[in-house]
């Protein structure tokens, strides 16, 4: 078990050419009627290329705030965020987002929902090529029979599958996920975790995912990032997960380190 202090994470145990996402001295202040509320302060985190990072922390500590800042949907109050050493300017398709609620356009079919992004990112491709991309990813998430179904007619789990397809189909460099499976039953959640890992593994992109579920955090991640409770939340601890990939749920559960990892995370959350 190896942990990295926040200083190390900040100053780079990784060569800078390996860094995909770099958060430096990040700060977020929400003005409230009772004065400014500092949610995040001095938050430093580096995430490597092709890494899968999960983030856990108490409810209300500022996880969504941090993720939406990376997505460019929420202005930064201080510090900086860069992707491949470039400061981000607002949202963009290099950072795909999967929201907690599927956020599909309910009046569109699954295919149209995915096409909405694909059309944006590959404007020079022919319609056929773009449709093939969209269909490829829909098929990857197991929706080959639901291309032409209205999003409003799909179950929650199927909608989130479309959300995953939409996010991957725009070929982002970084995929940001905010408790994407929080609203699903455990069976569906397991299926979608497998699908997510499979596509992530194939596409070689960087993933940052918020979760409340310690087991999910361990099963999916290369590193689990723990955030301290707010106000002025920062990175409290980072845990490397050294399981080999591809992982199966069974092999992870049977691994000797599993309970050590789990205890580490729970100890952190209970303090």
């Amino acid at each position, binding site marked *: 078990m190896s942990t990295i202090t926040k200083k190390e994470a900040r100053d780079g145990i990784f060569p800078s050419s390996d860094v995909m996402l770099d958060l430096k001295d990040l700060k977020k202040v929400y003005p409230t009627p009772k004065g400014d509320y500092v949610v995040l302060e001095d938050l430093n985190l580096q995430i490597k290329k092709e890494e899968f990072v999960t983030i856990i922390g108490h409810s209300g500590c500022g996880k969504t705030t941090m993720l939406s800042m990376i997505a*460019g*949907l929420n202005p930064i109050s201080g510090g900086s965020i860069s992707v491949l050493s470039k400061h981000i300017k607002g949202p963009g398709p290099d950072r795909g987002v999967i929201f907690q609620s599927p*956020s599909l*356009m309910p*009046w569109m079919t699954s295919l149209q929902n995915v096409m909405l992004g694909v059309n944006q990112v590959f404007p020079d491709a022919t319609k056929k090529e773009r449709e093939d991309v969209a269909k490829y990813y829909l098929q990857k998430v197991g929706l080959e029979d639901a291309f032409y179904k209205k999003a409003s007619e799909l179950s929650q789990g199927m909608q989130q599958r479309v959300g995953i397809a939409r996010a991957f189909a725009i070929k982002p460099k970084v995929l940001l996920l905010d408790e994407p499976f929080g609203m699903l039953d455990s069976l569906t959640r397991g299926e979608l975790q497998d699908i997510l890992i499979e596509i992530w593994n194939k596409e070689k992109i960087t993933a940052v995912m918020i979760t409340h579920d310690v087991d999910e955090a361990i099963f999916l991640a290369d590193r689990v990032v723990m955030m301290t409770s707010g106000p002025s939340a920062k990175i409290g601890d980072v845990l490397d997960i050294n399981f080999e990939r591809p992982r199966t749920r069974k092999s992870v559960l049977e691994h000797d380190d599993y309970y050590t990892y789990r205890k580490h995370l729970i100890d952190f959350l209970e303090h």
Partner: protein
Amino acid sequence: MKASLTLGKVTNFLGLGFFITLKDLFTGKLEKEEFKNFLRKTIVPLVSILLFIGLWHLGAKSLYNIEAKFKIEKALQDQGQVAADALKTCMVSGESSCQPNTLPSPSQVWNSFQSLLRDHNIISADKAAFIEKTAAMNEKRVAAGKAAIVYTGRPSFVDQVFTSLQTVFAGFLLALLIAVPLGIFIGLSPNLKSAFNWFIQIFKPVSPVVWYLLVFMIVKTLLIGSTEDSSFTISFISVGLCSMWATLVNTAMGVSTVDKDYINVAKVLKLGTFQKIFKVVLPSSLPLIFTGLKITLSVAWMVLIAIELLAQSPGLGLFVWEEFQNGANDSNAKIIVAMFAIGIIGFLLDRLMLMIQNWVSFDKTDAI
């Protein structure tokens, strides 16, 4: 199977769902627990309609008696016993010229309705004959570069209804073309919103009569020197301006309250303004826009009568006004026929809008 299913849907849309229940009753398909439902949906409305007609009949009768008594007493005082007796026998005989003028009874209204239909058939036949007769001559006239002779006879009641529908649709279209785009702009821009807010608040409650006068002032000047009859133009513009507010307010509201998640998706995908409006904002505000359009259409139909009456433009409003002025013995009954026509058409228009709304809108549960 499929056909009866869609039939069921259509009748349900029209609020005539009880027809299906009625059919089930006769084909013996009705379950016992459905019987209560059947009572509520079929028997209760039928009973209430009969009750309404009965009350109306009794009310009309007592009004008739009051009026008759007064008339006879007046005749007695002014002209003596002989005249009074003559009037009495005349009334009892049912002779129409001496009937008291009051609220017509249901049967009188029904008779007037039928006579209006007969009148329509006569006029239509007349018109068809005229067209046939002038066809050859008109062909020559057109070939010679002269204007064709058109039928200028009196319009029938049914013609008036169609004229009114034309006016209302023209007004509705105008309202739609102004209010929807304007509503989108207002909804998208907080600045425009505050610029237009006072404007909307002030003009929304203005009454149809005032709108008519305003439009009249402007159109009269604009069309100065033109020999065209401007009454149609004036009335449809007034109807449009009067009725567009609900659509304007609802569109602006729909556009400014699009789900934040959708906006975030649009931002992440970096959709252009055009794409954002047409692929995200508009579809998601369609339910509210349609609610507005529905109100607009019913308001348009409601104010139409008053405006036609003022504008002296042909249609149901003018029909009512002329019958009122006319004061013939069956004028009152004709006015009541017009009232029912207005009510029923208004109801059908509302249902039509609901059907279109259900058809275009993504959220099937949202309508009504």
